[in-house]
């Protein structure tokens, strides 16, 4: 992917042509995905279940082995790091999972849970660690008395606060939040979103926010990336995305999120979308079967990733789309039609 001229600084995280598959390469989870997250920004990664969002998050921490691709964290390829370097990197990248009732150990008090990362990474002496834990539990909005209780003694919203505290305790630069608010009630979800907004503002932390819910992503993301069947179809600055996404699939997603059923959409087609089987070199666009704007070319050739010129000069993140509609993006007539 070509990066836009507007970005001069190195992104905090850069994923380049990442592919991940399961079952001896039979099931493609992630297909040549490239994306990047500038420091201090939040990227919302959206897509239906099974689109490969979580696999991207896991690959960044080397929790799954990719088939190919590179991931640069602060300019260093994490797949070339030795054990020690990777350990140091894991301190800088932390993960928050979907369901805190299973991601927190039931046999540890909150204090033990929060202490473990500090001990693992040998951060500070015992006094410093205790102080750090006291601070962090306050940051996430829980009282000191929480430290000596067990996860089951908390509500799901409080448990998610603890999971966030555990991720924050090592002062990470990047937080990967994998559907971190999806299992919560709307009222609790609002509280956790408030907490995340506070972290963005006060700590300047970068977040890869994985979610299927565009409304949640609108609340906290600076940039939006859309995945479908393992491929990244679009990455846009959030304001641009929500005032009119570029890819036909993104448009479909947005209509659903706004509670509208897209006119062209026929419900009965959906069940065909089981997870993708490997078929060698792709010879069509992954979305061509369901695309309302399908052209003859879409079934013959895989589209390339096109950079979209910026209307807004101040935009920071990249803006690109993988669609044949944008093959002649510089042609003004065509652009009129597309937008």
């Amino acid at each position: 992917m070509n990066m836009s001229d507007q970005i001069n600084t190195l992104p905090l995280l850069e994923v380049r042509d990442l592919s991940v598959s399961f079952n001896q390469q039979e099931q493609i989870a992630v297909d040549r995905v490239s994306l990047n997250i500038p420091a201090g920004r939040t990227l919302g990664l959206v897509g239906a279940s099974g689109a490969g969002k979580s696999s991207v998050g896991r690959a960044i921490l080397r929790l799954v082995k990719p088939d190919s691709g590179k991931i640069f964290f602060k300019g260093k390829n994490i797949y070339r790091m030795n054990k020690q370097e990777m350990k140091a990197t894991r301190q800088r990248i932390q993960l928050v999972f979907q369901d805190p009732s299973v991601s927190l150990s039931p046999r540890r008090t909150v204090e033990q849970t929060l202490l473990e990362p500090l001990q693992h990474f040998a951060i500070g002496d015992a006094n410093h660690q205790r102080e750090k834990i006291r601070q962090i539990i306050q940051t996430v909005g829980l009282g000191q008395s929480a430290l000596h209780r067990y996860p089951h003694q908390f509500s799901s919203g409080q448990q998610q606060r603890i999971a966030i505290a555990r991720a924050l305790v090592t002062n990470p630069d990047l937080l990967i939040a994998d559907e971190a608010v999806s299992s919560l009630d709307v009222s609790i979800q609002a509280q956790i979103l408030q907490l995340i907004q506070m972290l963005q503002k006060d700590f300047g932390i970068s977040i890869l926010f994985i979610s299927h819910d565009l409304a949640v992503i609108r609340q906290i993301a600076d940039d939006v990336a859309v995945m479908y069947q393992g491929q990244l179809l679009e990455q846009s600055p959030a304001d641009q995305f929500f005032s009119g996404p570029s890819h036909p699939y993104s448009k479909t997603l947005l209509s659903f999120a706004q509670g509208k059923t897209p006119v062209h959409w026929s419900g009965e087609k959906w069940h065909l979308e089981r997870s993708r089987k490997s078929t060698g070199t792709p010879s069509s666009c992954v979305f061509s079967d369901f695309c309302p704007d399908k052209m003859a070319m879409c079934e013959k050739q895989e589209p390339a990733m096109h950079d979209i010129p910026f209307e807004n000069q101040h935009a920071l993140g990249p803006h690109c789309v993988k669609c044949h509609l944008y093959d002649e993006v510089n042609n003004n007539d065509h652009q009129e039609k597309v937008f």
Partner: protein
Amino acid sequence: MTTPALKVNNLSVWFETGSGRLTVVDRISFSINAGDATGLVGESGCGKTMTAMAILGLLPASGVNVRSDGIELDGRDISTLSLAQRRAILGRDIAMVFQQPATALDPVFTMGQQIGAVYRRHTGGSKQQVRNKMLEALESVGFSQVEDIASSYPHELSGGMRQLAMIAMATVCKPAVIIADEPTTALDNRTRALILEQLKQLQELHQTAVLFISHDLSVVRQICRDVMVMYCGRLLEITDCQSLFANARHPYSAGLLSCIPQISNKRPAPIKSIPGQIPAPADLPSGCHFAPRCTRAEDQCRTSVPELDYANGRGVACFRPL
């Protein structure tokens, strides 16, 4: 006047424990007419699922107490039925779509076997008839390759497909009432839209009454005409969705509305939330249960319980409504 498809009178559910009585559903009454969908909304732990289980008589006979002045299904009281009588109506006259199809479905039978079993149990018929009805039910929820789905085991289907298959199971006998307990929670927007769409179509086609349980008002609005807001076992507001979204009268309903993230062109203002959390049934505050979290609460709210007060078809249980 028509007889409502489902009428619940003064339903209470409570547990007796060593430290006193824990009330989880507190004297609630409502009715749903044929062809109508009513939402039951509230945070987890407020008694929504308990209400559903009590209506269906699925709560265990020991340990939990259920009392009501009658639960009527098309005018017939089902609260006093024997186990055998109840079995005859569950799935045929009133059916439930559970929250987690992954655990509600049996992993060792195919979807076809499970859906067919429901129909055979209530209606009987030849093997071929049962199979046809089963395939018809699968088709009615939007599947096109029904044979393929029928021969699949639950684990072979995605979450959304399982939920649709479960709706097919609940509707195979065309019951008068369906209780759907968070059927779309944890599904992505597109799958959710599809399931709501199918549920709505079936409801209109068969004039089914639907009690739709959810924590998310934005989902309820998509499918229900009326909505009931529940908090700590009590109904705080009963009205139609349109009025609730236009002007919620109970401060709790207004709080729930403000929690819904909105999609807009401009970056939205930071989201609002209701401070605090739902109290445990063991230490419910006296007076209005919502008072400790309510910005409008006064002394009266903390000492006496506001009853549902009906005016112009809307019920609000609040001393200081908006």
